[in-house]
């Protein structure tokens, strides 16, 4: 296949998942603050999956730690945003 040299199925899946960030970005640009937070949370999940696929694509076990760190940090970030959106923002 032309232009696909060096790509494996994991990279193709990661590229396909990147398209899912576009709807998340659109949601983050429209609607109320809580709608935007939902878009941000989903974008964090999609990013985690992309990192997971890329770690396997490059075949480095240490890269999986990035996906794990992002999963935990996007959870903490979402909780902080939710807490502040309750009353203060």
């Amino acid at each position, binding site marked *: 296949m032309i232009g696909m040299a060096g790509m494996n*199925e*994991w990279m193709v*899946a990661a590229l*396909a*998942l990147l*398209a*899912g*960030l*576009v*709807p*998340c970005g*659109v*949601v983050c640009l429209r*609607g*109320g*603050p*809580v*709608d935007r*937070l*939902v*878009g941000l*949370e*989903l974008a964090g*999940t*999609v990013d*985690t*999956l992309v990192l*997971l*696929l890329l*770690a*396997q694509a490059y075949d480095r*076990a240490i890269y*999986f*730690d990035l*996906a*794990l760190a992002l*999963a*935990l940090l996007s*959870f903490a970030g*979402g*909780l902080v945003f*939710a*807490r502040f*959106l*309750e*009353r203060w923002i």
Partner: protein
Amino acid sequence: MSLRELAVSALLVLGVVVTLFSCLGVLVMRDAYDRLHYTTPAAVVAPVAIAAAVVLEERLSAAGVKAVLVAVVLAVTNPVLGHATARAARIRQFGEWTVREEEREGGSPP
């Protein structure tokens, strides 16, 4: 193509398709409560499918175990995050998140 490679590809396609449809669902729903439902397939079905694909490929090596760990973390934290977000949305709307007086008598929530 062996059966294992076929299973890996099928699991990857499942994970990607479920996530893309979740993103579309979040985009087309009307309010935050409706949107929140669509984060769950992306955080439960897709990570489990992708982690299963990694485990099929790598067995339970360091990579496989970490992939399973990521799937478990996403599946466990997403309901907590969803509850916190819905709670924030409700507090912004009504000033409190507990059941209100007019909802007590079997009325449907707004």
